[in-house]
């Protein structure tokens, strides 16, 4: 269980790294994009008390306003759902993506209070300039606690580089949901998974209120 400990910090950092982005960031390479994004996000959290306290509305707003240009939530959801995605209708796909995104924002925004003097450092980047699917490796360091490994998987699209998976301390988000989602789809179908996610989200919303 010990491996779970630094989860909080990293989840906190990652939520916002995925969620906040600067509209004017002129980053063309994926590693520069992740670096700029991370720095701006950390600065934003440190500066904003409401964000730091995990105010879900506030986090949600940031996600909605700034995240979409830099993240492909649909692809993240598709990969997590696995083979079942193929048989889902466009409406089901949209619902899955929306509920999964809400779940991630809701659960992880609570961890933001853990952020103190954290800084992001890039680890060696080894992709070729021609690659269209890359992993950018970073680590988050603070004066207290061990460095936290935080990696991103990005795909080059017509709209620029998009993050579609992230790795916290060696654990890929998509991979960690795959088995749970597949099991749910197998037992109660795509609609069952949507229902489970929606129920969880409303539980979490009530708890928060």
């Amino acid at each position, binding site marked *: 269980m010990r491996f*779970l400990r630094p989860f909080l910090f990293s989840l906190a950092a990652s939520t916002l790294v995925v969620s906040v982005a600067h509209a004017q960031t002129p980053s063309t390479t994926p590693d520069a994009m992740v670096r700029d994004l991370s720095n701006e996000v950390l600065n934003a959290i440190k500066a904003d008390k409401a964000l730091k306290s995990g105010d879900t509305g506030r986090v949600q707003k940031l996600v909605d306003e700034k995240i979409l240009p830099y993240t492909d939530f649909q*692809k993240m959801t598709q990969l997590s759902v696995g*083979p079942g995605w193929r048989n889902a209708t466009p409406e089901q796909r949209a619902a899955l993506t929306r509920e999964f995104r809400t779940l991630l924002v809701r659960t992880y925004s609570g961890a933001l209070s853990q952020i103190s003097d954290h800084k992001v450092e890039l680890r*060696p980047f080894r992709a070729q300039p021609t*690659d269209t699917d890359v992993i950018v*490796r970073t680590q988050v360091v603070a004066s207290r606690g*061990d460095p936290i490994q935080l990696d991103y998987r990005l795909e080059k699209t017509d709209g620029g580089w998009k993050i579609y998976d992230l790795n916290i301390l060696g654990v*890929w988000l998509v*991979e960690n949901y795959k088995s749970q989602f597949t099991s749910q789809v197998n037992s109660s179908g795509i609609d069952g998974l949507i229902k489970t996610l929606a129920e969880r989200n409303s539980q*979490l919303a009530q708890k928060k209120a």
Partner: protein
Amino acid sequence: MANRQKVLMKPVLTSLIRNVAIPLSVLAVIALSGCATVPADSGSDPRDPIESFNRQVFEFNDIVDRAVLKPVAQAYEFVLPEPVRDCFSNIFSNFREPSNAVNNLLQGKPAEAASDTCRFVVNSTVGLLGCFDVARQMGLEKHNEDFGQTFGRWGIGPGPYLVLPILGASTVRDTIGIYGAEAYLDPNFWINNVALRNWILGTRFVNARSELLQADDLISGAALDKYRFVRDGYLQRRRNLVYDGDPPPTEDEAPPQTPPGSPPADTSVKSEPAPPQPQPGTPPAPK
């Protein structure tokens, strides 16, 4: 006379634990069979062939945790101020340095092994038994290694996933590596005074649990199936550690091919990217 009684008490206690407590806990696990919700596809994952049994132990651990471990850890956190807990965490982390050094050596990383040795010497002395991580301020970073990782590095697979009573997530390889070989290199076990040794061990366990208190809610919120969330996280994390934060991609990591006849939304999915190849001469990625 009182002393004599104390001496007599010890074997009685030990035998009580051995003859009563352990069978009782085993019985409890068995009694719990059927309490754990086991999904229909249980055991379908080749990494976890004994899933339904593991789930029962997981359930048992959860009950023990809620009844005993968590409240004790909460009290510990409530009573001790943060600097004291940090000091304890550092001391317990310092206990692991001899093992870090030996395992780094066994993994062919002599520079890290030397650094770990320096860390142990500096922190045990100047750092007051490890209470302060002075070595880190000197630029000596920590490298957590154990025999589970070393065996993995040598090419030994993790074997089936195991949930150990009380201790939690593990695999066959990690159980042997972490709970078997490790004890010989842990200064905690070098203490001859049994009572003191056990007190420290106990505090260490409670301290470790207290560090996870905030993670509880998060996992309960994020996981649809807590058992699999923890299992898949553990297995990924350990694989990552074996390769020091830079594991080769697995077959599973290949993005799925665009299925024929899917709507245009799928066209964003491209085929398997060229995995970044470790270049000779590239400095090892920090953990």
